[in-house]
């Protein structure tokens, strides 16, 4: 294995991941646009390998309440996909879908949670679908699991899951643009190290 940890990725590796992510996130934006029946644009994503603290700082505050959807990947690529909704994105989506607006995640009910979970799942699935076609790998996805919790607590899940391999996270940040408003989202793709080597190998850069 060429890479032992996420932080071993060189500029070329990151560039390739960025290319693929940009196609993945645009598929995600298209799905979201179809679902909401409105124009959704997306900025070109940046792919960064960050520590836990850096990831928290990029997304928000450590104790900030966010919603997150988690899906497990298996088959040729093993790992986790995590999508984080901050309140602005959640409101934009729920506003369009069920006509509701909230001051806090705490005011939401089961129905809102499940709508967010579905949307998180759709974003992750369309991203991964584009990814599998491009890289020519088979990836199976689990059913989604969601939570509304402190951002810091949520991000410890992948850190703990891969804690024996790496302390870093692969953070893909692109911003959805709806009605001229930039909405922050956080997508984390976290293949285990063996899978990351497999992906880069498939793309001919091993």
């Amino acid at each position, binding site marked *: 294995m060429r890479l032992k940890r996420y932080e071993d990725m060189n500029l070329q590796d990151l560039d390739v991941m960025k290319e693929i992510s940009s196609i993945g996130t645009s598929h995600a934006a298209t799905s979201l646009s179809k679902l909401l029946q409105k124009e959704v644009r997306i900025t070109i994503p940046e792919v960064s390998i960050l520590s836990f603290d850096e990831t928290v700082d990029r997304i928000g505050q*450590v104790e900030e309440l966010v919603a997150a959807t988690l899906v497990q990947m298996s088959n040729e690529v093993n790992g986790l996909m995590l999508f984080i909704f901050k309140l602005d994105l959640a409101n934009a989506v729920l506003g369009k879908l069920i006509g509701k607006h909230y001051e806090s995640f705490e005011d939401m009910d089961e129905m809102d949670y499940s709508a967010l979970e579905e949307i998180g799942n759709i974003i992750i699935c369309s991203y991964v679908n584009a990814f599998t076609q491009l890289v020519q790998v088979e990836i199976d996805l*689990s059913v989604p699991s969601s939570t509304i*919790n*402190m951002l*810091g*607590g*949520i991000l*410890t*899940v992948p850190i*703990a899951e891969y804690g024996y391999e790496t302390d870093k996270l692969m953070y893909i940040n692109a911003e959805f643009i709806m009605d001229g408003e930039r909405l922050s989202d956080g997508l984390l793709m976290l293949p285990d190290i063996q899978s990351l080597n497999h992906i880069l190998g498939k793309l001919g850069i091993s």
Partner: protein
Amino acid sequence: MKFARGSNTVITYALGSCIGITFYDPVIKLGGLLHIMLPSRSDPNDPKVFKYADSGIRETVRKLTAFGLVKSRTVVKIAGGAKMFEMKGNSDFGNIGQRNASMVKKVLMEERFRISAEDTGGTYARTMLLNVENGDVIIRTVGKPEKHL
């Protein structure tokens, strides 16, 4: 690991599956707060001792003892170890919180500490604070009043 003496508050934010462990010696008002992420250090050359329950607790105790902490009068409290996501069809996923909690308890027992209060498990993140002035431990969670351990 953070520690303070006399006055001040040590704090660790948003414990998910991680565990916060407070050590407090009321006589000399010395307090330490350790935040562990995983149960055991499998690679003895791994320099991040405080990341693991086994090496973290031992190193914290060693440090605090050097500052005068006496085991027999030390008050130990723990919090965290939540299961943040429930994976349908894969109940093992995210059990790390529970494994952390049992490892922390095991190591504390081996080191001859008694846990005087705990707030572990559940599905929510916690922020843990230790007031070194009076040994008060506060747990902050979303949507609930502050809890004194």
